[in-house]
């Protein structure tokens, strides 16, 4: 079976500084992969490169059997990819409804879009209550819900999430992760970048560790959680 996402020896540089130095990974359809690593390890860079928001200096990205690393972001999205950017990245001056509809920008099936809008409202009742409110006036947790809802409006088969727990209260984080679990039951492939390694490894079957632009560890989340190096560096255990 073709993997949903396959990355081969990916290099991404900001000017002279190489942020990713030969990253290779593969994600099967329906799989959940956690990507953990310290600040500046290149996690966000990797997600942006996959989504087409950053140019790749070398290497290949395959999306469901298609080579995409030279395509712009607007060409990759219709192929079933969606990114929930770090820090939510919603449109503060647009209403909740307009934000959600923007997630379906690449789609033309207006009937199905209306269904999906209703689906997001039932998934996030808070958003339904505030559908005409400006997104900038929402709380942090609501904005994160909106960002996820907007990404789902594109009917992604591969969902890239950049630190969905950032800056949220523990209760809100729990809610967001419960939603992600539910979303995955619909067969969505997940690539989750998280600082909160425990949460991420809990949700995902497999975990990779990114350090200084290279993958250093890779394995089943349960095994990695017992690895002393991971415990010391990412799980806060001595």
């Amino acid at each position: 079976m073709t993997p949903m996402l396959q990355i081969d020896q990916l290099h991404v540089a900001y000017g002279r500084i190489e942020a990713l130095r030969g990253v290779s990974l593969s994600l099967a359809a329906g799989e959940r992969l956690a990507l953990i690593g310290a600040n500046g390890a290149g996690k966000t860079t990797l997600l942006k490169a996959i989504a087409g928001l950053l140019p790749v200096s070398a290497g290949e990205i395959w999306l469901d059997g298609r080579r995409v690393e030279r395509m712009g972001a607007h060409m990759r999205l219709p192929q079933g990819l969606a990114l929930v950017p770090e820090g939510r990245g919603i449109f503060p001056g647009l209403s909740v409804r307009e934000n959600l509809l923007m997630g379906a920008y690449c789609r033309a099936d207006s009937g199905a879009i209306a269904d999906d809008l209703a689906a997001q409202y039932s998934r996030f009742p808070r958003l339904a209550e505030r559908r005409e409110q400006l997104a900038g006036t929402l709380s942090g947790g609501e904005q994160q819900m909106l960002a996820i809802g907007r990404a789902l409006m594109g009917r992604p088969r591969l969902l890239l999430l950049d630190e969905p727990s950032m800056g949220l209260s523990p209760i809100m984080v729990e809610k967001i992760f419960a939603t992600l679990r539910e979303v995955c039951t619909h067969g969505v492939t997940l690539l989750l970048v998280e600082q909160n390694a425990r949460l991420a490894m809990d949700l995902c079957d497999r975990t990779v560790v990114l350090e200084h632009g290279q993958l250093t560890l890779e394995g089943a989340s349960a095994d990695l959680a017992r690895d002393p190096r991971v415990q010391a560096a990412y799980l806060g255990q001595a």
Partner: protein
Amino acid sequence: MSARYIILLALTGVALTALPWLVDGLLGITWVRILSFAALYVLLALGLNITVGYAGLLDLGYIAFFAVGAYTYALLSSPQFGLHWPLWATLPLAAAAAGLFGLLLGTPLLRLRGDYLAIVTLGFGEITRIFINNLNAPVNITNGPQGVNQIDALRIGGIDFSQALHWGEVTIPAAYMPCLLFLALAGAVAWASTRLEVSRVGRAWQALREDPLAAAACGIDLRRYKLLAFALGASAGGLAGALFAGFQGFISPESFSLTESIMILCMIVLGGMGHVPGVIAGALILAILPEALRALGPLQQALLGHVWVDPADLRMLVFGLALVAMTLLRPAGLWPRGHAGRGD
């Protein structure tokens, strides 16, 4: 399109047509000329509103597109090259030339944002003016600082927009003619703007303005929509420029200074960025204000027996005060766009 919408459009059309008669009746024939200029400013403001208001790309050199349109028209319909092309060719050509210029400018600017974009566009505006100013040697193209003279009047078919029109019993005075043409075109551009705003393109611009990265994450092709905003905004400016050249019969580089760019930007900021009725109101207010202030001279003479403050000085004072007051009291403009319930 509902019946109500069509009726509204028709009523607007009738009102615009009646406007010169109304203005002449109430204020006199000089005000018809003022109204003509105001309509040109409305066109310019609507064009800049596409770039700045819709797409959020701050352009401080917008007057360059006005200049490109004006010179395109002037060079194709004046003794300068002995060309006298018809209006149906020159008007679209002027708009297209300005639009092409917009693309040329936009392409290197794609990577710039905010302040950097503003500074480069400002530079571009000045470069264009100075270029036109110096393009009289080695080959004389623009006639340099002397400008282009004896530009053909706006004329299409049998209709000359600088002459009175006799149509059976009805006579439309000469001064009304350009005014009607400008109002019609300003109305058309205003209508097109409102349609654009709620279109797919308009939504892409809105996303781009709000958060470019999130817009890209929604699959919006930033490059394409930025260029489109530059090109469309520029072509409206070019159209206004051609009309201006044909109306004045004379143009020179002086008319295309940085102050004009700033003035047009002030119009849309004052009115309410991104909101067509607000932009029109802002353009009308700032275009008419200086003329209205002229009346203060005789008024001072009558009341105080002496002109204490020259109305021309007063103009900048009132203008500055108005902007300060607006920033404090109505930061989103006099008539901003409401946020909720858009597109209905």
